[in-house]
């Protein structure tokens, strides 16, 4: 479904040039849920933003269902891939009601039966019709993230990119959102790519996980490897150890991977 070859993104020019993503290759099958983990600044979110076309100066090839993506997207091609952002407090327009937010993609793509579609999608993400005319500041963090998920789903895309969808939420709400995402994937046959710095969150949802460091994929591991900690690369092992909780002795052995 998703096939990324040799993806590279460079920011800045001259001396301040930084290669945020270098030579990334990923293959994700239809209906699969794929995770990307790594520390802050490892380039994992940049990969997603290149895929949805926020960054247009990438090199390499990205194919969705065999179709190579161009730097400039047509409006109709936007339907196939949508994204859920990290911060539910920043990803909803503060002056628009839930209804405005959910209706807009339908208006842009000229879809009919807007009211029915909005009510249906709200129900699917577990929000009642009473939320339809609320403003974001009248919603909790978890409810906002549900609205953001509904906005991504309302165009009925086949691929959803999740950029740390739970990291701004508290732990009990994290579990609810993860369960919702996993249920939606089953009912709609969606393909996910999820980015996170939290191995536990990624392990809950994803069957295969790529580990990124300094813009490169250092290792790809399976769910079992993730559970057992049977990993090859030193950086992955360090990340895995860190996810097991705070340990002063382990912390002292940590080092920077360039």
């Amino acid at each position, binding site marked *: 479904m998703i096939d990324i070859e040799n993806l590279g993104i460079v920011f800045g020019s001259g001396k301040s040039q930084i290669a945020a993503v270098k030579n990334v290759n990923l293959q994700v099958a239809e209906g699969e849920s794929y995770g990307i983990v790594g520390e802050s600044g490892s380039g994992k979110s940049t990969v997603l933003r290149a895929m949805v076309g*926020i960054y247009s100066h990438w090199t390499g090839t990205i194919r969705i269902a065999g179709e190579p993506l161009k730097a400039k997207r047509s409006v109709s091609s*936007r339907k196939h891939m*949508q*994204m859920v952002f990290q911060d539910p407090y920043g990803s909803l327009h503060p002056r628009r*009601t839930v209804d405005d937010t959910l209706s807009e993609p339908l208006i842009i793509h000229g879809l009919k039966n807007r009211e029915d579609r909005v009510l249906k999608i709200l129900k699917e993400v577990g929000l009642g019709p009473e939320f339809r*005319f609320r403003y974001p500041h009248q919603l909790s963090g978890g409810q906002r993230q549900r609205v953001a998920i509904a906005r991504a789903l309302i165009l009925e895309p086949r691929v959803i990119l999740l950029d740390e969808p739970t990291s701004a939420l508290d732990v009990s709400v994290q579990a609810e959102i993860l369960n919702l995402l996993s249920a939606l994937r089953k009912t709609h046959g969606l393909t996910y790519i999820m980015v996170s710095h939290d191995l536990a969150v990624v392990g809950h949802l994803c069957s295969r996980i790529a580990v990124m460091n300094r813009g490169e994929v250092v290792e790809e591991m399976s769910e079992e490897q993730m559970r057992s900690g049977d990993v090859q690369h030193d950086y992955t092992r360090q990340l895995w150890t860190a996810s097991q909780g705070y340990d002063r002795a382990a912390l002292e052995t940590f080092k920077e991977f360039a």
Partner: protein
Amino acid sequence: MMSETALEQKSGSTSWLLADSPKNAFQAKCQRVYIGWMAFRSNPIAMLGLAIVLFLCLVALFAPLIAGGDGTTQDLANRLAPPSAEHWFGTDELGRDIFARIVWGSRVTLYIIFLVSIIVMPIGLIIGTTAGLLGGVVDATLMRITDIFLAFPRLILALAFVAVLGPGLENAVLAIALTTWSPYARLARAETLTLRNSEYIMAAQIMGASRIRVLFAHIMPMCLSSTIVRLTLDMAGIILTAAGLGFLGLGAQPPLAEWGAMIASGRDYLLDQWWVPTIPGIAILVVSLGFNLLGDGLRDVLDPRSSGGH
């Protein structure tokens, strides 16, 4: 927000305005306005400003009834009369009733304010948000033009415009508007730059929204409130500039009652017949103050960080 019990005790319309889950878009908008109004109402200084501005509007609306004359009738036998029961604010050098002229002058003031607002806001907003959103060459070009307008002293540039266009109220308004829009463009651009990289703008782009849609539907509503606040705070300056142009004989032409022109023609009598220039001066002061206080109150209510931030 109020507690549940307090809500239940309220009457029907208030509970409709404070209902937890609005039934339609209209109710949601009304609720937003009402909650803003409650915040505004708790600020007595802002309410005083609102009262002054509303009073100005009412006076202008009912000017023929209040003034009891057209304010241009001359009575040379009764010139420079002090304030009395017949002429509340006295009469001027041509024996015209100053009270009537002040009342009619409120229409001129409101007219100037209205015209300047509907010219300045769209120009400033469109130039600023376009520059901020598109960036690059467009941004550089638009901002250098803005810089040129910013660099001129306002009154001098207005004088130059009026000198070219000819004296008169409409030309004075146009001159004021052309010299006032530049700070608004700057303000709108600065806000657009902070909004441009926000996740809700990215989400709109990902769903396929065109740049025009992003500009008008997403960015402008966010810039609108700070522009309105800035405009109300600038109103005092606009009124004073209009009065200044009137004072120099470049604004409203006689016999039209304009407060600045009234001060100009009355300044010779300041020592012996103080009321002739002082009364229009007080009128300008009160209205300027009213708009400033209103602007301060609106800033607290409309600030997106305080009303919709969390």
